[in-house]
């Protein structure tokens, strides 16, 4: 019979887990592996709450293996390193994002695209190489192979920088890959939540004109005065949408609810690109003539490889980009989740793990 989560590994750990599809969290005792030769052991200080954590906690994608300890926007300090580790030492400020392992042999891994490896292992809710389940950052410590640990830039605040490890790379990667970096071009950001608000900041840092596309008119003044967007389009206003048709070079679609792509595609110029990074659980509707008639494309993107995640962190540090966050304690997590489900956060919750009582 399999060992229990508490005994399967030698290092004691404590976190908060969801045990069923109500997605309600409570304290959970488990364990982490011994620090291997390539491993870095990290005392977790902060962990961002990503919408994926909520989807998974409530088994909305049908793939959750309970009990689940989510969290893949992890920041902390190194407490121990294995013998082969040269990049990090005790005391370093580091981060861990969405992946903790991949095969290192396939074409994707060889190109630094571990995030497209067919055998990648996610930070939580995956099965690790030793057959045990991976547990994420809603916990006090984590042990990760050095290849999947990021160096946190000195001038980046630990708490506000944590969300960049998922939200940041999720928008940065496609902006680079799909060429959304030509100064003066026009980027639309659909959805103004955790991903969207970071996309606005990164878009401005690339020198783009940025329009936020949202169903909530009350987000407008913040979008412009605080986040730096150039314009705001209320997508439920047909007259305003019509006036904006054919004006955008690219759109990052961060909306995770099911929606039709038709109105967004119409906003794009000829040869325009719409990249979807949200993960709605049902397919999106695409009117094909909107693609064919103007040679537009819809692309996907999923986080980023390790090298470009480090590049993204360094880019954000250089441009003073961090997330806008609301700090919560671990025992407030259920309330935070309920508020997140209603999009009631500006714009990311971050768990102050270091200052929380976990028991």
């Amino acid at each position, binding site marked *: 019979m399999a060992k229990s989560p508490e005994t399967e590994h030698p290092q004691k750990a404590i976190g908060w887990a969801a045990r069923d599809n109500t997605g309600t969290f409570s304290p959970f005792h488990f364990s982490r592996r011994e620090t291997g030769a390539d491993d870095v052991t990290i005392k977790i200080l902060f962990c961002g709450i990503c919408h994926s954590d909520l989807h998974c906690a409530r088994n909305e994608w049908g793939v959750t293996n309970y009990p689940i300890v989510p969290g893949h926007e992890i920041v902390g300090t190194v407490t121990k390193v294995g013998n082969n580790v040269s990049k990090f030492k005790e005391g370093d400020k580091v981060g861990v994002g969405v992946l903790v392992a991949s095969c290192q042999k396939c074409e994707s891994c060889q190109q630094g695209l571990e995030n497209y490896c067919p055998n990648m292992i996610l930070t939580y809710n995956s099965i690790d190489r030793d057959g045990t389940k991976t547990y994420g950052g809603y916990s006090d410590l984590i042990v990760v192979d050095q290849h999947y640990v990021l160096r946190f830039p000195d001038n980046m605040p630990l708490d506000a920088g944590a969300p960049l490890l998922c939200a940041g790379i999720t928008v940065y990667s496609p902006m680079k890959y799909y060429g959304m970096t030509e100064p003066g071009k026009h980027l639309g950001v659909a959805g103004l939540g955790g991903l969207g608000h970071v996309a606005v900041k990164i878009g401005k840092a690339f020198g783009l004109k940025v329009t936020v596309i949202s169903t909530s008119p009350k987000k407008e003044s913040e979008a412009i005065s605080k986040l730096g967007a150039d314009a705001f389009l209320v997508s439920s206003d047909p007259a305003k949408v019509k006036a904006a048709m054919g004006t955008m070079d690219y759109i990052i679609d961060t909306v995770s609810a099911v929606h039709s792509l038709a109105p967004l595609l119409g906003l794009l110029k000829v*040869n325009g690109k719409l990249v979807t990074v949200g993960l*709605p659980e049902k397919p999106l509707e695409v009117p094909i003539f909107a693609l064919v008639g103007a*040679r537009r494309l819809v692309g996907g*993107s*999923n986080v980023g490889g390790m090298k470009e995640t480090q590049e993204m962190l360094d880019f954000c540090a250089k441009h003073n980009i961090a997330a806008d966050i609301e700090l919560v304690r671990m025992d407030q997590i259920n309330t935070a989740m309920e508020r997140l489900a209603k999009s009631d956060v500006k714009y990311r919750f971050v768990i102050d793990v270091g200052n929380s009582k976990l028991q």
Partner: protein
Amino acid sequence: MGQAPEQEHPKNAFGWAAKDTSGVLSPFHFSRRATGEKDVTFKVTHCGICHSDLHMIKNEWGNTIYPIVPGHEIVGVVTEVGSKVSKFKVGDKVGVGCMVGSCHSCDSCAIDLENYCPKVIMTYANKYHDGTITYGGYSDIMVADEHFVVRIPEGTPLDATAPLLCAGITVYSPLRFYGLDKPGMHVGVVGLGGLGHVAVKFAKAMGVKVTVISTSPSKKSEAIERLGADSFLVSRDQDEMQAAMGTMDGIIDTVSAVHPLMPLIGLLKSQGKLVLVGAPEKPLELPAFSLLMGRKIVGGSMIGGMKETQEMIDFAAKHNIRADIEVIPADYVNTALERLAKADVRYRFVIDVANTMKSTP
């Protein structure tokens, strides 16, 4: 009230037109404009029958103006050129495709993408600069601005080249634009009809490995032995589709019926591209998850600009690429359209206009 088609212009013309949504074509007398200073007038020898013609004669897209003379795969021999025409002379073999006008001032026209000009004028059933309605190539003569005329190289058969003017450019343009033209790549072609069979030939000429994806197992031996495809995948065969997952750099999807995209996206490698050139009239479902988990793309494409249409014709001439056609007389056109609706043609009908489309005295 506008003038009758026969009187609005000075040159007599004869063609076959549909007069209502039944889509039945019959002889039709009309007229063409005088050869303007930038115009090329040519005697039409052949015209390809495109599936779009079928949609348009029955007003399936809701924008048909009757009477409609279809045909936008038009070839012939120049009989007259305007005083400012520099590229063509009498006796040249030429062709006209889907467009006869554009604005020449927008961002798309500026980069030789007249096909994406918001004011593009289609070869038939559109309003021309002079306010009259355009009539297409199911007719004995054509007058077109030289910008929208392509040269058909010597030694190239006019009849089998005609379909390239729509079908050819429709698949050639995305093969180039989406970068699916590199030797050694693996590209799938969905649908083996007018567009599909030409896509196979172009892709092979570019050095690409080609797999035809079709619902009809009976098309397999032709696809491989005659058209030169490297392999054939029956899309209803779950095992075959499963085995081919993650093997293609790109797919050109020529199917215009509504169909599921997810199995096609699954055939793509990571970073692969699915390009749609058919336009189903209902929206399709796009599973976002399949696109994300491999950073894949679904893009569209519609014919091509004039510069690349000439480039495509020259490429086809150099590589001996021509359409596989069934030449028909003008009075067979209604039967041909019925057969086309049932996909009963290998792979394009071409009307022998010069020999059979004559006005009865």
